């Protein structure tokens, strides 16, 4: 008997494997981009060249570098801004890939399966090529039995009694949660909700989170619950509200205790008015977004249509802008009226429509977001920061819609869009 058939078999397998398609080759993650206008996440710089070495920004300067580094060509009038941070998403499937389409290079997941957390942690510590935004996440949220969050198919952490607060926090941290998200609705709240944990439980969970040095953020949807959450010591509110204008007392307490807020205006606008996506976002977008996927943005809005709610939403955006409260930009995608990536730009366009200064708005989606979520090397164009960068054709001052069509997006220094 011959060994030949076996040898031929091995050669055929090897040849077939060799013929299988490989990923497209990528350029190195070291380059210089410029000359170009630069908004570093906090202010406009007098620098015009940004240099990247192996995925990290190594030089921001007004002069080109002397080295023979690959130069990314630019056109007059173009701008660089840091990769955007969406401070409220629920990321699964293609979410983080879709986020990159609109320059969102980091997402804050505020209720997702914990199996994603460890992978996300490994991924964000690497500067390898990836076709997904980085993720920091809360994992399972803390809520009441039958409370908000229990309807989504996988289990949150329902708190049955006061004594389980510490365990809820410890278990979340053991699962890889970067912060603790709690769902709370005050008794007598104007906006009806599912069952909620008590104020005492809310306090206990927040104290337990702080004892373990992690942020405790609270899902609220009305003014009274916001007051309670702030009084209980929350670090942030991950929704705004529209049942009434923000009171001076609440704003004062939030300023004093440095509580941030992620207002998620677009999802609320979709709920109480339902016109921003169809009349502002999608017309500005043109073909920037797959229209076949646009149903979530255009359909089913105004289920709680109310002029006073809508006016309150606009008023609260203005009041927050005039206050010293840190406002972060988050989309709550992929809930009704939102989609990953594009809805963060919609939030920025909403802020623009309410006369929020463009630098403040971009800051809320970059450097400020990184700072408040305690993310060290994202959100700014500065030496030592991860090279997550967005190239746009004009200044956002001329219209936030320029962000709908980024000319280049770099993740870890690799051009991914």
């Amino acid at each position, binding site marked *: *008997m011959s*060994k030949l*058939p*076996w040898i031929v*078999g091995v050669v055929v*397998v*090897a040849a*077939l*494997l*060799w013929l*299988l*398609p*490989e*990923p*497209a080759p990528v350029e190195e993650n070291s380059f210089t981009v410029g000359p170009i206008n630069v908004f570093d996440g906090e202010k406009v710089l007098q620098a015009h060249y940004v240099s990247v070495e192996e995925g990290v920004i190594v030089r921001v300067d007004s002069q080109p570098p002397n080295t023979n580094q690959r130069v990314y060509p630019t056109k007059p009038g173009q701008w660089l801004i840091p990769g955007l941070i969406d401070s409220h998403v629920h990321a*699964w*499937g*293609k979410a983080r*890939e879709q986020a990159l389409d609109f320059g969102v290079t980091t997402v804050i997941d505020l209720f997702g*399966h914990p*199996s994603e957390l*460890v*992978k996300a942690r*490994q991924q964000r510590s690497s500067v390898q090529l990836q076709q997904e935004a980085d993720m920091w996440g809360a994992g399972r949220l803390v809520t009441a039995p039958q409370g908000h969050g229990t309807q989504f*198919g*996988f*289990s949150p952490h329902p708190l049955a009694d006061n004594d389980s607060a510490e365990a809820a926090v410890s278990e979340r941290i053991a699962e*890889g949660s970067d912060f603790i998200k709690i769902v709370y609705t005050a008794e007598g709240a104007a906006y009806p909700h599912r069952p909620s944990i008590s104020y005492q439980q809310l306090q206990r969970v927040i104290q337990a989170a702080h004892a373990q040095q992690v942020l405790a953020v609270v899902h609220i949807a009305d003014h009274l619950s916001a007051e309670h959450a702030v009084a209980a010591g929350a670090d942030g509110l991950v929704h705004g509200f529209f049942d009434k204008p923000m009171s001076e007392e609440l704003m004062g307490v939030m300023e004093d205790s440095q509580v941030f807020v992620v207002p998620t205006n677009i999802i609320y606008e979709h709920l109480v008015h339902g016109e921003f996506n169809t009349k502002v976002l999608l017309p500005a977008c043109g073909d920037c977004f797959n229209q076949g996927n646009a149903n979530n943005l255009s359909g089913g809005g105004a289920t709680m249509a109310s002029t006073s709610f809508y006016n309150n939403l606009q008023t609260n955006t203005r009041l927050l802008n005039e206050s010293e409260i840190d406002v972060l930009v988050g989309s709550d995608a992929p809930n009704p009226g939102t989609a990953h990536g594009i809805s963060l730009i919609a939030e920025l366009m909403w802020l623009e429509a309410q006369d929020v200064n463009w630098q403040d708005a971009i800051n809320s989606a970059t450097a400020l977001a990184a700072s408040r979520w305690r993310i060290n090397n994202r959100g700014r164009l500065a030496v030592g920061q991860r090279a997550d960068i967005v190239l746009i054709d004009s200044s956002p001052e001329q219209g936030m819609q320029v962000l709908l069509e980024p000319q280049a997006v770099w993740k870890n220094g690799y051009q991914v869009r």
Partner: protein
Amino acid sequence: MNQWLVEAQMDMRVLLRSPSFYLPAFAFPVVFYFFFGIMVDFSNGHSDYLLISYACFGIMGPPFFHLAVSIASERTHGWLTLKLLSPMKFNSFIFAKLVNSAVFSAVILLLLYIESAWLAGVRLWFWQWGLLTLIFTLGTLPFAALGMLIGALVADRAAAGVVNLIYLPMALLSGLWFPLFLMPDWVQWVAYGLPSYHLVQLGYAVIGKADEVSWYWHIIYLCLFSVSMMAVLKGLSGRFSGSQS
């Protein structure tokens, strides 16, 4: 060595004359992947992830069925006793079945690779295609050992049924058909005890999507599982020679 190759080639000839063995073995993973990985797209765009899930599912079939059914059959009908009376070494009999199971598994892998590259746009580096092939070809061993155990314990007519009773739930509970996080938490604890879970994690590691456990723990588990199966089989060696029924 010649005797080992002869036995392997004879065994291969028998298999090639049994389309009822190899056609379902090829078709199941290819069709399942087409429906759940491409048409319905349970993977939400992560076709490479589901390719590995179904590759693991596919390669489990040949060693399970070939070892279990043919050993049960040859043992029940006395062919194994006859063979053991001949100068043939028992190890060459087992070796032939192991090698041919691996060969059929390699064919399943290639079919899935071509399907995934052609229809789902999966793109991997040559080293990833090669490493996956190596992992899943060697990964047939624990299932072959389990198949041998089934073959040693059950009658020939029951073997295929018993294999299905183990094979299909094992695939489901290891997250090969649906991601584990879509199933109740207790399923994840069951999965940790199954060789298919550990094998598929090695596959996921090749594309950077494994769980948080280091890859070498999965290898250690698979080795320990195979060795334990072999130890049990050694204790049952009388059943192969016909001294026990």
